[in-house]
């Protein structure tokens, strides 16, 4: 939980990329999620991943990204490397390294596993980069502004998202305090089997939920006291977002990746099968 909060805090840092419109970064992120759907060529995936790391250097978040991904990369890659080769469809023409009953590991299976792992790694890197360069509350505010002013949708929905992120640190703080209070009453939360630990969290959950409900009620009252209404579509926004040239260049960077992926598809280079 602390790490998630730390990631969200990184999104509020100052850098040329942090300064961009959050909607531009959202569009860029969508492009980067589409790329691994189109491409399975491990070289192309690796190049795109490196490119995100270069962007992370510009955003001055490479250290924080490294701290998170140094754990996530081996977990993801390891999981895929362990599971995929065993389930890669067996054909007679493969170069088998190991074969027993229904289990089989071939060179082709391993290459495929690497490609699948790199797809996940590219998506994971893009997601981490997006979260660490974007103030999610700013993003929700920008989307709310767009939804209300262009699509005439109430600000209530973005507010729900904003509130979720805004109160996440408070909920996390409450959780730590409540857990500590139960530890102080000799509840050994960290030991025992999974089911035992699950059972021990019940006392912790009750005050946490109770506190959340009370807080939600207080916030609802405070909103009403400050004239908030779900029907009000005339609401103005203190921070008004406008796309700049930098935002457009950034989005074009994301679109360029899709164009290159489509080009690779057209040329027949996009798929891992060319190495098999």
């Amino acid at each position, binding site marked *: 939980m602390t790490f998630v909060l730390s990631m969200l805090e990184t999104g509020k840092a100052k850098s040329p990329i942090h300064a961009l419109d959050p909607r531009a970064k959202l569009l860029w992120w969508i492009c980067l999620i589409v790329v691994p759907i189109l491409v399975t060529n491990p070289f192309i995936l690796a190049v795109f991943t490196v490119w995100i790391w270069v962007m992370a250097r510009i955003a001055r978040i490479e250290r924080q990204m490294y701290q998170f991904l140094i754990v996530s990369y081996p977990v993801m890659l390891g999981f895929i490397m362990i599971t995929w080769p065993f389930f890669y469809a067996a054909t007679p023409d493969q170069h088998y390294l190991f074969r027993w009953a229904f289990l089989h590991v071939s060179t082709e299976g391993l290459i495929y596993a690497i490609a699948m792992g790199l797809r996940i790694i590219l998506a994971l890197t893009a997601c981490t980069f997006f979260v660490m360069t974007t103030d999610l509350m700013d993003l929700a505010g920008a989307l709310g502004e767009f939804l209300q002013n262009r699509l005439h949708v109430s600000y209530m929905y973005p507010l729900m998202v904003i509130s979720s992120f805004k109160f996440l640190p408070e909920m996390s703080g409450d959780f730590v305090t*409540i857990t500590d209070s139960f530890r*102080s009453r*000799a509840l050994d939360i*960290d030991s025992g089997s999974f089911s035992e630990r699950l059972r021990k969290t*019940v006392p912790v959950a009750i005050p946490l939920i109770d506190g959340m409900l009370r807080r939600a009620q207080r916030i609802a009252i405070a909103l009403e006291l400050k004239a908030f209404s779900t029907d009000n579509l005339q609401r103005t926004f203190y921070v008004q977002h406008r796309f700049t040239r930098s935002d457009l260049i950034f989005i074009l960077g994301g679109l360029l990746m899709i164009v290159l992926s489509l080009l690779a598809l057209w040329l027949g280079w996009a798929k891992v099968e060319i190495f098999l």
Partner: protein
Amino acid sequence: MAEPVLAVEHLFYRYPTRASYALEDVSLSIQGGEFLAIIGQNGSGKTTLIKHFNGLLKPTQGQVIVEGRDTASLPTSELARSVGYVFQNPDHQIFAETVRDEITFGPRNLGHSPERIQKSLQLVLDEMDLAGMEDDMPFQLSRGQRQRLAVASVLAMEPAILIIDEPTTGQDWKESTKLMELVRRLNEKGHTCIITTHNMNLVSLFARRVIVMRAGKLFLDGATQDVFSQVDSLLTAWIKPPEVYSMARQLFPGMHFDRPLTPADLGDLVAGRAQVPHPNTPFEVLP
């Protein structure tokens, strides 16, 4: 001097997400049966310090010894046998359907026998003025009752050391003094009581020793009357001592008291019913 029940030796603590130390080179020792108040402005390190006493936080550097045992190697659930910790907000620990279940939760975790639990239940219900409420739902109690229930549920574990973090927050004077009277009674029965608070009047009335924290360091440590007499030093830590000390300093400069000063004491001094103290000599009420 007897072995302290709690000793802190050159304690440094840094939160994992912070660059600077929250506690720096704090050393102190607490004898059994003391009634101690830890005061300081917000962020001075009071709560960080007391969270070391039951192992909720482990020292970055230095040692915390509780009844001869180093807290670094013991889980909080084990230290709870010696150190009871009552959190500021009672709603952070209340979860049971009845007052009885809430109070017996801790002793059950410690593996106490049913007879022992029943005995301690009755005892703490009486001591915390909750007798007759055993079957009540904790969430329906008043704030003051919930605060007393929080103390009771920790007290039922029979700890030698009782820590209460901000015991009077959100309570009126009547409830605050009632709770503090109960804590004093526990102290008179032999519990070592440690409180943190911003209410200087309550500190003056109940604590016999005061520790002042400033910017993560131990700033002052001494008898309540000695600490509160250092008005100028306290102001540098953004602490305003009770008015009675400021007034006494104006009326009787350089005086020294051998016990915490109350408004009644000052009244006696002004009215001539008590001996005006000379510097560094205790004062006495005249017969």
